[in-house]
């Protein structure tokens, strides 16, 4: 017992280095195998360049860019679609008012994407490899959003015809669609309660169930992350409410509807 105390006293603190500073250092000056850029990387780049130049040339030989009649503000076409990469947002117009689908969601998507590096609490896990199993939550969130974006694009692009009605790709657009079932709205109080519960439970339950996760992220990170996640999840929730329960708005006020 006495020996140990003596040893302790002989130790002196020389310096303190923050863990992330060490990691940063290791990242910038890695001790690992390197090869010459010329020819190892440049040959690959040249091959990729040649292959994809050919792909572009062949693609533009077999598919002509569309050109319709001269623009005519007086003649609305049967289906007015946004460019394909924005069709997902247009598809959301079925479920949300334009201010949400066209303005709020794109803004949240961009801000959310930009925040990713600052919301991820772990500085090294999975860096430099496809270690999806090690970052299950992060990967789930990203893949879910990524897939949903392109799924909405696909539905909007291939399954929507005149009047934005649902048509299978091989179905004729001339076949009339039955009038849509009457939609109802939540009463105002119930709607506000539903939304409040949705966010409070969505933020509360994981905080209690996964306390490690909660503390690892910290208060601010946790709330931003979960609010973004729950807002993303509002899209499938709203699709479900509309398609299964025929509910148009969760909250309806004279000023705005959600």
């Amino acid at each position, binding site marked *: 017992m006495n020996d140990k105390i003596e040893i302790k006293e002989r130790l002196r603190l020389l310096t303190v280095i923050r863990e992330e500073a060490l990691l940063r250092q290791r990242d*910038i000056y890695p001790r690992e195998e390197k*090869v010459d850029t010329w020819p190892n990387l440049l040959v690959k780049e040249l091959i990729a360049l040649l292959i994809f130049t050919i792909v*572009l040339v062949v693609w533009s030989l077999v598919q002509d*860019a569309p050109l319709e009649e001269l623009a005519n503000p007086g003649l609305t076409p049967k289906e007015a*679609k946004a460019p394909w990469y924005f069709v997902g947002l247009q598809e959301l117009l079925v479920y949300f*008012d334009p201010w949400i689908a066209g303005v709020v969601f794109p803004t949240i998507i961009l801000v959310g994407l930009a925040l990713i*590096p600052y919301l991820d609490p772990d500085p090294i896990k999975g*860096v430099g490899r496809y270690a999806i199993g090690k970052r299950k939550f992060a990967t789930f969130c990203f893949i879910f959003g990524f897939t949903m974006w392109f799924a909405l694009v696909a539905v909007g692009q291939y399954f929507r015809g005149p009047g934005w009605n649902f048509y299978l790709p091989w179905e004729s657009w001339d076949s009339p669609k039955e009038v849509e079932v009457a939609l109802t709205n939540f009463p105002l109080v119930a709607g506000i309660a539903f939304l409040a519960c949705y966010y409070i439970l969505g933020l509360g339950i994981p905080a209690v169930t996964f306390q490690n996760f909660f503390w690892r992220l910290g208060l601010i990170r946790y709330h931003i992350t979960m609010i973004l996640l729950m807002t993303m999840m509002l899209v499938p929730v709203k699709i479900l409410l509309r398609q299964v329960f025929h509910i148009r708005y969760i909250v309806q006020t004279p000023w705005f509807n959600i």
Partner: protein
Amino acid sequence: MNIFIQMWRSLFRTGVTDSPVHRVFRVVVNFSLHLHPARVSKNGIKTTYTFCLGGLNVLFFVMTAITGGLLMIYYTPDVDKAYANMLDLENVIPFGTFLRNLHRVSAHAMVIAVSLHMLRVFLTASYKSPREFNWVIGVGLLLMTFLLSFTGYLLPWDQLSYWAVTVGTTMAENTPIVGAKGPFSVLGPEEDMRFILLGGTSIDQPTLIRFYFAHCVGLPGALVGLMALHFWRVRKAGGISRPL
């Protein structure tokens, strides 16, 4: 014969000798190759790691820039002429259709490749320190790519472009507070977001010239600037990410 050797040497300073020093020298003294470090990590150049997506985006961008420049020669941003220019491209100008197709196809390829590049960077956790801000710049590049594609959509001035842009800009009208039809709107239809975007209350000549400027000068300029920053920061972070 010496004069030709002298010319060749003045262009490509390093000759054809293959030695470690020459390999390094060749990359360092070359203007376009100096974007790369002289030596790269072995992990980073695996095709199955990056799938060449970042580099392919550069290729697609350069392709749209070259074809776009050529298209500018045959195009007038005037509502009375734009559509006729399109018909000329299709029927009169040699390889006009091919030029337009190549421009369109490269732009589509770029939208796809930018998305996949973002997916790749996410899955390999490459946004983590010290590359956080480079990811943010990447999000900026994604936005620029979408906006470039969108502004280009109007230029042919046919039904397709007119109504697609109508759909897109109607969204601006519904912006909360600053859109005329949005919730808590404070601005009328002649001063709101949509008006600023279109240069009027409907898509017309002012809109075409705005979109033309944004498509040919404003957005490509911003994109090139962000690209330069993006590449610079990749280099300053010690090259692309690798297992720690």
